């Protein structure tokens, strides 16, 4: 197990990867990626039980599904640095003939990816299906998923949330990236989510909150607590309060960088704020 400093160094390097990837192709989604860096680093390096190599069926290991697929930069960086594919391949993000499509997909066979996502609101159902398969297979490993908060405006989520509680799918830990921002503005301005905790509780879920979703120790503690809540007849959701654009000061606390790449000068500032730790790709 890596120590906390090593995880923090990895997170810093991942943030560098994210801004470099989107800068190179002048497209992509840095805001949500930066906001979820600690979550991904914690999940793949401290929280999930993973086998060596990649097996689509994920038997005998924890599996993860990204529902808000537009934050692919952080996903790709963490997968590469966890060894699923060569770090150098991050160079191909969004380029022609790449396995690193704008939104994650199984279509080009990128190891680590088990479902295509991008069109929002579908990942909860998929994760639940995988959780049902684990139960049928007597596999006591867990299914993790990540969802945008704005994404919860998609109705399919609530079909899935209703199904999960009614059928006691208690081997899933869904996390909501609760940054309160979406493309057109704050979630309160676009379509208020209301009391998310109360809504999940009313649907029969076990709800945990991580107040500091960009503090890696807090994220690890929150996810490990969530693990202790599994197997009790209720699905588990973690409301992870994050800051969109975290770690690059001019990208923070705004929806402006949801889907916009930095220019050369902005990249230089972002990199200065996140010094190289593990080596750039």
């Amino acid at each position, binding site marked *: 197990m890596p120590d906390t400093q090593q995880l923090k160094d990895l997170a810093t390097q991942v943030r560098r990867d994210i801004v470099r990837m989107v800068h190179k192709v002048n497209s992509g989604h840095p805001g949500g990626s930066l906001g979820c860096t600690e979550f991904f680093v914690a999940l793949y390096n401290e929280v999930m039980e993973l086998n060596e190599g990649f097996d689509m069926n994920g038997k005998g290991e924890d599996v993860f599904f990204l529902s808000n697929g537009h934050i692919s930069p952080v996903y790709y960086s963490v997968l590469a640095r966890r060894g699923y594919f060569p770090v150098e391949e991050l160079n191909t993000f969004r380029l022609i003939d790449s396995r690193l499509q704008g939104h994650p997909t199984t279509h080009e066979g990128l190891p680590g990816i088990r479902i295509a996502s991008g069109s929002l609101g579908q990942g909860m159902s998929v994760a639940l*299906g995988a959780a049902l398969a684990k139960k049928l297979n007597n596999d006591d490993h867990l299914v993790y998923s990540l969802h945008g908060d704005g994404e919860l405006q998609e109705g399919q989520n609530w079909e899935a949330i209703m199904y999960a509680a009614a059928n006691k799918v208690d081997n899933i830990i869904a996390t909501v990236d609760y940054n309160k921002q979406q493309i057109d503005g704050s979630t309160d301005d676009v379509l208020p989510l209301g009391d998310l905790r109360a809504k999940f509780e009313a649907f029969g879920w076990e709800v945990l909150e991580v107040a500091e979703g960009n503090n890696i120790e807090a994220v690890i503690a929150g996810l490990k607590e969530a693990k202790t809540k599994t197997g009790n007849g209720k699905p588990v959701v973690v409301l992870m309060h994050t800051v969109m654009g975290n770690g690059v000061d001019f990208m923070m606390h705004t929806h402006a960088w949801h889907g916009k790449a930095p220019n050369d000068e902005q990249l230089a500032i972002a990199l200065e704020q996140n010094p190289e730790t593990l080596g750039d790709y």
Partner: protein
Amino acid sequence: MKKYTFEKKIDTRSGFGAGLAELGRTNENVVALCADLTGSLKMDEFKNENPERFFQVGIAEANMMGLAAGLTVGGKIPFTGTFANFSTGRVYDQIRQSIAYSGKNVKICASHAGLTLGEDGATHQILEDIGLMKMLPGMTVINSCDYNQTKAATIAIADHDGPVYLRFGRPAVPNFTPADQKFEIGKAVMLNEGTDVTIVATGHLVWEAIQAGEKLAEEGISAEIINIHTIKPLDEEAILKSVAKTGCVVTAEEHNFLGGLGESVARTLTANHPAPQEIVATQDTFGESGTPAQLMEKYGLNSASIIEKAKAAISRK
């Protein structure tokens, strides 16, 4: 004209139910999901014999498609069951992204397709589903014609690795194909060899094509009749070989003429062997309430229409 008979009329959806039940006994990876239409889809036998492998999802088809995609991660072979309208149009994006683009081994099984759903009317009578599904890369599209073929198709698609759309219907129809048939995905079935016109039919229109063939024979017209259960991939070789012999073709389907079997056959002919073609299908319209027989007559989807179109095709040679 080769003689076809049947002992009784029975619905194609019961063929699906029987096939699924058999799969439940023979393939432990097969699981089934249903959106509050277990009785209509004839899934009760599978459900009762395999309660742990049956998932009642409620009236939530989008979630059903996602659950099915997820179940494949873990090696399961999910069969989803609901009406054709709710199996396709309602969940197109879920199928597109989570199943087709993701390459998931999900079998989308759709009953009550087309006009023969009857009295419920146009809200439920989808006539666009073949087009929707055949446009998805990697999707196999099957429209079976009777009980025996639907049962055989259901069993066969479990062994096919990849997404499949299996379309069948509500009413009792003649069960004339052999109970022991070997179902080969993408392989046309020759029902009658002829020389004057090729009739390529799918689904409920196959029996109508046989009826038409018998009447045409009485008038001295020799029809070659092909049962196309698989619309994608289309058995182009069988169609081209037949049309090379007869010189013209009629296609027949319970679907809009846009996006259906007729278009697929036309594309095949124009690319390889242009020939006169007439299409028996609905004419870019919604359906309405009525009995299946009334609707099929009003919208021109019966043996009388096939005969008329066959003569028209021959006259254009």
